């Protein structure tokens, strides 16, 4: 159980860190000042969440690691994040679509965790849930504004949606570690969240005049360390300082 729980918690941390790092790449690249501030603050939430998950994972592992070990001293293949989150930022609409599709799922996951019977996870999730609820207000409003915007913005959003869509199936797939943890902690299995996710996403897409893609959900493997080539570059940049100067500190 501890092993499964440790994997489960590390995956939560990896999702938060990898998406947070992608968002950090957007700092100074946003189209306007308000977006610059919103993105940077949201990225901080993710980095903060990753730290809390990693601190817990380190305790569960009991191998004397600290949170930095998970962020800075593992190779890309050891990361277990969803593939969607490591995809390059693309244009503003691509980043918004990625954010929206993931956060609808992540909020459901956190709501479950906040009520689960692992006290530590429940506390972290209760904190994080409030933040993601707030992020969603942002990503939803841009989905609507750009989807139901000009002809060009609509086309770009539709295209972004089709690109991101193929990676979303991975949210609803469970392996032995998930099943063990979900059972012990009294959580819904990821596949059980799918109909609620569909419902919410379908409703927003129709309001945003976007079409639900017919693209099949074909990509998966991130959670087992099988990543797209993009993660290697992300991790190389993230870890550069610690790899070049191990244990460097300010």
């Amino acid at each position, binding site marked *: 159980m501890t092993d499964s729980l440790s994997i489960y918690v590390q995956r939560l941390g990896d999702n938060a860190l990898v998406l947070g790092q992608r968002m950090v790449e957007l700092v100074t690249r946003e189209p306007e000042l308000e977006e610059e501030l919103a993105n940077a603050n949201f990225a901080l939430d993710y980095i903060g969440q990753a*730290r809390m998950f990693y601190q817990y994972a380190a305790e569960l592992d009991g191998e004397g690691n600290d949170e930095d070990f998970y962020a800075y001293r593992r190779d890309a293949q050891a990361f277990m994040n969803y593939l969607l989150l490591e995809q390059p930022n693309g244009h503003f609409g691509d980043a918004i679509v990625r954010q929206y599709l993931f956060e609808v799922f992540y909020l459901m996951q956190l709501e479950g965790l906040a009520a689960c019977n692992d*006290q530590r996870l429940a506390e972290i999730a*209760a*904190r994080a849930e*409030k933040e993601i609820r707030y992020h969603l207000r942002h990503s939803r409003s841009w989905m609507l504004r750009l989807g139901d915007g000009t002809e060009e913005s609509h086309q770009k959003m539709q295209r972004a949606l089709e690109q991101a869509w193929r990676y979303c199936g991975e949210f609803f797939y469970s392996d032995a570690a998930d099943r063990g943890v979900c059972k012990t902690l009294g959580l819904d299995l990821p596949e059980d969240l799918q109909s609620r996710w569909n419902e919410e996403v379908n409703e927003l897409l129709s309001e945003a005049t976007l079409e639900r893609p017919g693209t099949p959900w074909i990509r998966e493997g991130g959670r087992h360390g099988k990543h797209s080539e993009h993660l290697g570059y992300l991790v190389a940049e993230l870890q550069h300082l610690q790899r070049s100067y191990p244990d460097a500190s300010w």
Partner: protein
Amino acid sequence: MVAADVSREQVLEWLGQIPDPEIPVVSIAELGIVRDVEVNDGVTVALAPTYSGCPATEVIEQSVISSLRAHGIDAEIRRVLSPAWTTDWISDAGRKKLKAYGIAPPAASSKRDLLAGTRVVHCPRCGSAETECVSEFGSTACKAAYRCTACLEPFEYFKCI
């Protein structure tokens, strides 16, 4: 001074003098960040982070440690996540100080408010309810940018979470 010589009330009073690093007119006690103080063999201060990634969290912990050290106490910090910090933890005195500083204090928090974003925000300068949101996502994660359409002053609103 050893811990036994100091009362919980005394420690709380000292903590009430530590300003928040981002909004220095209010203390960390008034913001509801100080959750508890335990005085046993040593002094333990329970602090609740406002946001997971709040860059002030570590600064606040350091200022608690150094402030108590100045009073001869080596305090330990305990981070408390539950119950999670919300704007409801800000004291009435804290709200008044925020308003006097020009930041509209948060109305009550609710999940519905967080999702829908509907609320009336009063201008901290003239008190008018005729205000408009310029940007929901302001200079820090906890603030939104507003403008008063009555007195035309821009101001910040401390968001409900």
